[in-house]
């Protein structure tokens, strides 16, 4: 049987996976906390997928941030960045 070849761009939405980090808080006193990550081809679908997948609470605030927009200051296993002279 010939297996169907997935046309990633047309069927899933992007030629390469795009990831988003999901942050939420339940009350205005709570800190905005990382609750998970999702893959979505664009911002609109990221918003929808975050809303439906991370529906474990009635959030006061829920937001998504493209993982690519996050600037790492320190990373596990690496030293704090220093300015080279």
């Amino acid at each position, binding site marked *: 049987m010939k297996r169907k070849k997935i046309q990633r*761009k047309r069927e899933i939405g*992007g030629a390469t996976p795009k990831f988003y980090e999901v942050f939420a808080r339940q009350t205005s006193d709570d800190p905005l906390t990382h609750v998970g990550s999702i*893959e979505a081809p664009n*911002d*609109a*679908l990221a918003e*929808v997928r975050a809303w439906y997948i991370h*529906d474990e609470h009635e959030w006061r605030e829920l937001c998504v941030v493209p993982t690519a927009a996050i600037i790492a200051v320190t990373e596990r296993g690496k030293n704090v960045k220093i300015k080279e002279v």
Partner: protein
Amino acid sequence: MRFSLDGLDGATRTAFENDLFAIADSKFVLGNWYARCILNGRSLPDFAALTAMTGAAYGHTRSLWQYLVNFGHNYGWIERGRDATGIRSMNMLDGPPADWADFIATTWLAEQATWMAVSGYLYCPDRALAGLAEKIGEETYFHLKYAEGWMEIMSESAADTRAFAKAMEKRYPLALAWLAGAKGSDALKKAGLRNITNTKLTKAFAAEIEQGAAWAVKKSALSGSPPKMPGWIDAHRRAAPLPDALFEAIRFRDPEAAH
């Protein structure tokens, strides 16, 4: 003062009831569209979104049906006692989706049209209905966002753009006919149940669709007045009864499973 349907004259009460039936039944069939297409979702998160939208569409349907009990109907009759001739969903949802572009175009049109109709009740003197309208609006936001996300993807492919345009040209006039065909609904504005006339709602719908579909469809392809539909039933806002095959697909077979 507590709102009561008894304060409405006969014609207004009938127009009110017809309008709510048309919205609720359209959402009933729309929920089935989502349910049937879950496995056509493009990925696991898509399945989750389609499943959630199925639940939301059924939830809106049942809340509106529950509200219709106030008109003297038995809930069991509303949900399971009507045959194909009694279901008042829009004609646009009669034919199944031909492809993914048609699915997105049609569900987007159905969400926009039903939301336009529901939004007229946001300031209804009956706070129960106004609250329900607000809740439907909050959930519809994500349903529309889902369609918009897929439209953005389809806009990058010439083949998908053509398929979307073809679907819009076929489905849009039927959505327009449903919204514009709400006879007597301006009595709802006069009675203060709605804060906007049906003519204005229809114009707002047309403007919203023209703008949202501009990436695929020329304005001229969408302009014009709603088509004349032979066999149009004013009270049901549709032409001809629901096709039997569709009725068999949507009806609840097991009353226990419906709750």
